[in-house]
Structure formats: C-alpha cells, structure tokens
C-alpha cells in the first residue's frame, strides 16, 4: 500500500501493473502506478492536445 499524493489516503494495489491508471478511492484523483514493488503512485499524466484514439 501507499499514499495518494493528493489527499494522503491509503491506496492499495490489486494486481495492478506498471503504468496502470486508477482513481484514488478517497479523492478521485486519477493516479498512475509508478512501481509495483514497492507500490508507488503519482498523479496521472495530463491529457495533451494530440491525445486521443
């Protein structure tokens, strides 16, 4: 487990993989998995203008 960098809530990995996006269960901030062992997260990258499908 680790802490949300925005609200410091405890967030847990549920078989997450590097780079996976998920919302913080407390504050809803979109987070990105930065490491799995140890489990680390950071705010997800901001959407750029050329992002899309």
């Amino acid at each position, binding site marked *: 487990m680790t802490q949300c960098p925005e609200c410091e809530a405890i967030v847990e990995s549920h078989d997450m993989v*590097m780079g*996976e996006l998920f919302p913080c269960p407390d504050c809803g901030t979109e987070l990105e998995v930065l490491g799995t062992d140890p489990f680390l997260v950071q705010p997800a*990258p901001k959407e750029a*203008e*050329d*992002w*899309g*499908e």
Partner: protein
Amino acid sequence: MSDGFRLGVFLTIVRPEEKWILAAAEARGIPVTRFDDSEVTFGLDVPPDLPDVVLNRSVSHTRSIYATRCFARYGVPTVNRPDVVELAGDKVLSTLRLAERGVPVPRTEIALSPEAARRALERIGYPAVLKPPVGSWGRLLAKVDSPEAAEQILEHKAALPSPVHSVFYIQEFVPKPDRDLRVFVVGAHAVAAMYRHSTEWRTNAARGASASPAEITPEIEEIALRAAQAMGGGVLAVDLVESPDGLRVLEVNPTPEFKTLTAATGADVAGRIVEYCGEVARE
C-alpha cells in the same frame, strides 16, 4: 503455449484496454516488451533484441507517428503501420482519402483561415460542426448554430497558439437518432459493433455516452471494411452515423479504445488484436 512471436507494446498509460492486451498475450504465452512512450529513445542503428511486431497503443498522435516510423526503420512491423497512423489520425487527410475511395462521408469543407472558414460555414449551412484536424474524445469540437456563434468560436480558435487550430475542418451537422455506431475492425473482419447513445450531440464514450451491442449487418460491415481498407487496414474503429440518406463515416480511429465495446458486446477484442499482431509478425 506461445504463438511463436515476440510482441512489443508501445504505450503511454495502462488503461483496461492495455491491461487486457497484456493479459491476452500472457495467456497465449507470448513474450511482451513494453515501450513507454515517455521513456523510450530511438537511435539510428538497429538495436538488438527487438520484438517481431509492435502494437501501438500510445494515446499521443505525434508520438505514434514518429515511433512507428522508427520501428519501421528497424525493420519491425507495427500495428498500425506508420502511414495508417498518420492518415487515420488526421481528420483532414483521412476524410480526403475516404472521399477519394468513394466511402460516404458527411459534406465537409476544409478552410485554412478564419475568413475562409466563415464562407465555408455559410455554404454548408447552420448548424455545422467544427472539428480540430487532430485529437479525439470529443475535445474542441464545436457545434456552430449561427453566424454569431461562428464569429465567437472562430475568434477563440484563432487565439489558440498551435497553428493547427487555424486549419478548420467544417462538416454538416447530420440529423441523426440519439446514437452513432462504432464498428471495430481487425484485419479483414468487423469483429464487434456497438451503438453509442447520448442526448448530447457528441456520442463519445469518453463523454459518458452509454452503449449497447449492434448487429453487424452486411451494409454496416461493407462500409466499415471499406473505410478501414481506405486507411490501409489494421486495427481500426470506424465511427458511423445514420443519416437520412444512409450510413456515413464520421472518422476512423487508429488506436481505438474498446473498454465500452467489450462491456457492451462481450467480444474478446484484446484477444483478436493480439492474434492479428501474430499474423502481421509472420507476414
């Protein structure tokens, strides 16, 4: 059991789609190399230990263009091919190609200045839709209801820093049911389709549209495959609208999302993509 090829996945972030692709490869015993689009560098010499094929899942159109070109330089095929990425990722270029191939699209004009855009809007009539040439998820799309609205929108567009905002893609607003249709094409097959419902005029899943499975009728299959082939083929999502005059292609997405489609249809889209990558690797 490995399908006998090594898969590279070039990506920005891991959404459910990428997670399913990685899981589908693992289930088939296919070794995967991940290339993070914010970390990778490309030298001019061919590096060792390259995969047999690279699946592009980057959400950045710009990074996708250059990365697929670099992999091509290394002799590694990509899904999709660099020319398909460039073409389908640009609404102007892709619409020109669709028109050239006789694939029905809504009436469209391209203008290169605000003044020319005003004239194009007058010709097309109101309401019309103004789209940026690059980008998706319904971002920066504008439904232009009147000349007054056009003045404001064009003024705002002109103030944006990127020169690409001075390219105006103007399309007739197609009166349609509160839904559009997405057909997912993998190689020569339309593998799944869904209706996207919204009371808003934009029906992107990213904007909260709901989805339901759609039957792939011969008519839907034919237009979707023609649109995909016009782009050069590969893994493509063809967005269609039901106009009073029949189906029209709105756009063809070169790195399509399929979370909503999978939920709506139950289709194993990720598995089909991985298997198609194997076909490309063996070509």
